[in-house]
């Protein structure tokens, strides 16, 4: 009985909320004011020709910097749940799977690279490229866990924080060169955005892969897996 009434309250609240939002949206003009014109007026100075990238990496680059910090924090959050062992492959990769991966993984890395490069003038960019890279990382983790365990410890930590560090470096660097925070020197804007996006792509890819593990990979695993591979070789 009590559960029912709680459910009822939630339903009533949700319906009221949906009504409120619908009422608000229907009351607004379809083509309301927006910053579209301003974006296109300034895109020439942004260093890229894709308006989305111009907004994300230049006009509102500060937001994106903080968003990459948030992604980085997601890893810290997962790691604060404790240590986990690297998930072993559920079963040894068969002939078909390893042959498929041999084609698929380079293709995924290439796609990520293309998306990253294309982001300057067409849809794409660091987040999309990073996601593809993250997918490749997860596939690798599911089949070749030995490779993944080789980069636990400081190389992994460096890769995870590279996006934030490079972005912050460029932001503060452009301030030291006489501009404001994140005010790229005009002729360098395009190349600096590419540098930031490259670091961010790498970091996002590694972050997504590490999140898949679901906790802090224990560094003891590394020695463990090296030992076990050694044994395998002996056989």
């Amino acid at each position, binding site marked *: 009985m009590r559960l029912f009434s709680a459910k009822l309250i939630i339903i009533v609240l949700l319906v009221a909320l949906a009504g409120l939002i619908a009422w608000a949206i229907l009351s607004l003009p379809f083509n309301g004011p927006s910053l579209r014109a301003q974006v296109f007026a300034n895109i020439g100075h942004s260093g890229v020709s894709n308006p989305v990238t111009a907004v994300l990496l230049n006009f509102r680059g500060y937001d994106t910097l903080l968003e990459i910090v948030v992604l980085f924090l997601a890893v810290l959050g997962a790691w604060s749940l404790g240590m986990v062992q690297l998930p072993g492959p559920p079963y040894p990769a068969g002939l078909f799977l390893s042959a498929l991966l041999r084609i698929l993984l380079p293709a995924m890395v290439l796609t990520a690279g293309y998306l990253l490069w294309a982001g300057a003038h067409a849809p794409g960019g660091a987040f*999309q490229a990073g996601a593809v890279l993250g997918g490749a990382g997860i596939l690798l983790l599911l089949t070749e866990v030995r490779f993944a365990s080789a980069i636990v410890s400081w190389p992994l930590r460096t890769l995870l924080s590279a996006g934030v560090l490079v972005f912050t470096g460029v932001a503060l660097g452009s301030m030291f060169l006489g501009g404001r925070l994140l005010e790229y020197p005009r002729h360098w804007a395009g190349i600096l955005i590419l540098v930031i996006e490259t670091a961010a792509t790498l970091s996002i890819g590694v972050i997504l892969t590490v999140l898949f593990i679901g906790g802090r990979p224990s560094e003891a695993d590394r020695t463990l897996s090296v030992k076990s591979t050694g044994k395998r070789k002996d056989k």
Partner: protein
Amino acid sequence: MIWSQWLFDLPLALVLLWLAWRLLTSADLFKAVVLFIAFGLLMALAWVRLQAVDIALAEAAIGAGVTGALFLSALNKINSEQQKNDKGQAETKGRNL
């Protein structure tokens, strides 16, 4: 011209709503995850229709791909924990990946 767009968009919107309802009410978590991935892919299509290709790419890669993989990994962990807990019972309800 307009009606042909409606012919595509309306079913897409309805299927999205239906999938969302199904995945929220599904008692089987594995089924819910699969439905979530399907939802993510169709959502990407909806973003394309809204002319937001950037978001469509991100939705397909992150919403459907990586998030789906994360959910499956979490589900696998829940199931293996459960198996550990009821070792005595030979029957394991969980699905292994």
